[in-house]
C-alpha cells in the first residue's frame, strides 16, 4: 500500500519584489534595475524592431501591429478597469479614418493636422454615438458597440456617400517609412504608460469602482455615466488615432476599415497577452500580428488557426502570457506537503 502524498504549490514574493514595492526601491541599483528591466526591455524591443526586420513588407507589419496594439490596450482598459466590454474597435478605426480622409481630401488639410483633429473629433463622435448605451452592462454594451460599425458601413455603401464602395483614394501618405513606424510606436508607448499611470491615480480608483459597484459610486456623489463616457473617450481616442494613421499609411479610406477584424483581434490579443495588465495586450499583438502575417499562405484557414489559438488560451492558459511571466518574475514557487 502506497501512502498518497498530497502536495500543493506555495508561492512567495521574492525579497527584491517586496523591497522595490516601496519608495526604498530608489536606494539601490538592484531594485531600480528590477523595476526598470521589463519596462526598458519592452521599449528597447519596440524601438529596435523597425531596424531589425528584413524588408519593407515587415516594416509595414510593424505599423499594423501598432494600430492593433492601440486597440487592444484600449480594449483592456475599458474591459478590466472600467467594466465596459467594448467591441467597438472597428467603429473607432472607421470613424477616425473617414474623418481624416474627409479633412485631407475635401479640405486639403495636411496629414499632421488631419490626424490630430480626427483623433480628438473622432473620439468625440464615437463617445456621442455610444452615450445612450453607456448605462448598459456586459454583453449588451458589447453587442451595441459591435453593431454600430456594421450599420455605418452599410449606410456609406447604400447612400453612396463619402466615396461609397470605392472609398476616398489619393490621400497624402507619410513622407518616410521611418516616420510612419516610429510615430505609431511612440504613440503606443505613450498611451500604454499614460493609461497605467491613470489607473493608479485616484480617478483610476473611481474607474475600478464603476466596474466593481456602480451604485456605490452614485452614492459617493459621482456621476457613473460621466466617468464611463470619459473612459470611452480615452479608448476611442486611441482607436481613432489608429484609424486616422491607417488612412494616411494606405493613402486610402474605404469601408473595409469598418471590418470586424478591428473589433475581434484586440480581444484575442488581450486573452493571449494577459487580461488586466495593459502591457499584456501589447505583447499579445507583438506575437499575434506577425504570426497572422506568416499564416497568409493558408488563406481562409488563417482565421481558423488564430481562433484555435484563442480557444486554447482561454481553456488552458486563461491568465495569459504577461500575468504568467509577471508571476515568475516576482515570486518563487515550490512544492510543499499538505
Amino acid at each position, binding site marked *: 500500500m502506497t501512502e498518497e502524498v498530497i502536495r500543493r504549490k506555495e508561492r512567495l514574493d521574492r525579497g527584491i519584489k517586496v523591497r522595490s514595492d516601496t519608495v526604498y526601491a530608489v536606494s539601490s541599483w538592484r531594485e531600480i534595475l528590477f523595476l526598470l528591466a521589463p519596462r526598458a526591455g519592452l521599449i528597447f524591443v519596440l524601438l529596435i524592431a523597425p531596424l531589425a526586420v528584413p524588408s519593407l513588407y515587415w516594416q509595414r507589419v510593424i505599423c499594423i501591429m501598432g494600430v492593433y496594439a492601440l486597440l487592444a490596450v484600449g480594449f483592456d482598459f475599458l474591459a478590466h478597469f472600467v467594466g465596459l466590454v467594448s467591441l467597438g474597435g472597428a467603429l473607432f478605426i472607421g470613424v477616425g479614418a473617414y474623418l481624416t480622409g474627409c479633412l485631407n481630401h475635401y479640405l486639403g488639410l495636411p496629414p499632421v493636422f488631419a490626424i490630430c483633429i480626427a483623433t480628438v473629433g473622432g473620439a468625440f463622435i464615437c463617445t456621442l454615438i455610444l452615450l445612450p448605451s453607456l448605462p448598459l452592462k456586459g454583453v449588451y454594451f458589447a453587442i451595441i458597440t459591435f453593431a454600430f460599425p456594421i450599420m455605418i458601413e452599410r449606410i456609406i455603401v447604400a447612400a453612396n456617400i463619402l466615396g461609397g464602395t470605392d472609398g476616398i483614394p489619393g490621400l497624402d501618405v507619410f513622407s518616410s517609412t521611418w516616420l510612419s513606424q516610429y510615430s505609431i510606436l511612440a504613440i503606443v508607448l505613450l498611451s500604454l504608460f499614460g493609461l497605467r499611470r491613470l489607473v493608479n491615480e*485616484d*480617478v483610476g*480608483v*473611481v474607474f*475600478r*469602482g464603476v466596474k*466593481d*459597484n456602480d*451604485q*456605490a*459610486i*452614485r*452614492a*459617493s*456623489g*459621482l*456621476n*457613473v455615466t460621466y466617468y464611463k463616457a470619459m473612459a470611452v473617450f480615452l479608448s476611442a481616442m486611441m482607436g481613432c488615432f489608429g484609424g486616422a494613421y491607417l488612412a494616411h499609411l494606405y493613402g486610402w479610406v474605404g469601408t473595409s476599415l469598418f471590418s470586424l477584424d478591428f473589433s475581434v483581434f484586440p480581444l484575442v490579443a488581450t486573452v493571449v497577452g494577459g487580461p488586466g495588465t495593459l502591457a499584456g495586450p501589447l505583447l499579445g499583438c507583438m506575437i499575434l500580428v506577425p504570426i497572422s502575417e506568416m499564416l497568409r499562405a493558408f488563406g481562409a484557414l488563417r482565421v481558423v488557426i488564430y481562433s484555435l489559438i484563442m480557444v486554447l488560451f482561454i481553456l488552458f492558459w486563461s491568465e495569459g502570457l504577461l500575468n504568467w511571466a509577471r508571476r515568475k518574475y516576482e515570486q518563487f514557487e515550490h512544492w510543499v506537503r499538505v
Partner: protein
Amino acid sequence: MGKGLTMEEPLLQIRNLSKSFGGVAAVSDVSFDLCKGEVLGIIGPNGSGKTTLLNLITGFIAKDHGTVVFDGTDITRTPAHKISNLGLVRTFQIVRPYVTMQTFKNLIPPLFSPRVKHSERGKLGDRDAVAIDVLEDVGFERDAYVPYKLAGSLPLGYLKRLELARCLAMKPLAICCDEVFSGLSMAEIASLLPLVERLQSEGITIIMIEHRLRELFRVAGRILVMNFGVKLAEGPPAEVMKDKNVRRAYLGEEVKV
C-alpha cells in the same frame, strides 16, 4: 450647500411620496418632516416599503408622485449623485464595497466627489491619508493594518462600518442608514451602537431603517411605522409601540385565551 435654514424650517421635508411597481403600491402617500440633528427610526414588517422609501428620498428610484425638499432645495427630480453631493447620503442594506481594492481605497471615490474635492478637506494632502483617518475614526484599527486589507476579505461587521465610513467621508448633513445592524452578532452591534450615538451627538441628522428595536429606541427620538407602503404611525418610541395598529402589524393579533 443649500439656501440655508431658519430655525423653524426642517432639514428634510417629504410630501405625499408615492411609488408603485406595476400595480403594487410600494410606497403610497408618505409625508414627514425631519429637523436638523434629529434621529428618525423607520420600522415595519418585511416588504412594507421602508427601503423603497429610502431609495425614493435619495433619488435611486424615480418618484411617481410627491416632493422632497432637502436643506431648502427641491430634490424631487435631482439625480442620485447630485443628492449625495448636497449632503444627503445613504448606506446600502446589502453592503457594496469594492471587493478587489484595499479598504482605504474604497473611500477614494467619496473623497473624489465634487462635494469633498472642492471643500477645504479635499485639498488637505493625500486622499489616501484622509481615507485612513476616516476609517480609523469608525473603528478600523490602523495598528492591525485593517484599513490596508482587501475589502473583500473583511467580515460583515467591518463592511457595515465601511458603509458608514463612505457616508462620513462625504461630510454629510444627513445619513440614511438602511439596516446597519442586520446580520451582525450582538457583540458587533454593541460596538457599532456607540458610533451611531456619536454621529447623533455631532449633530448629523439620521434616518435609520431597523429591525433591532431595542438598539433603535436607544438612539431614535421619533419612530415612523410603515405597513403595506402606508405610514401607520409616527411619534416617540414609547407612544408608537403602544399604538394598537402598530402592535397588530408588527407583533400580530393578541389572542385572548
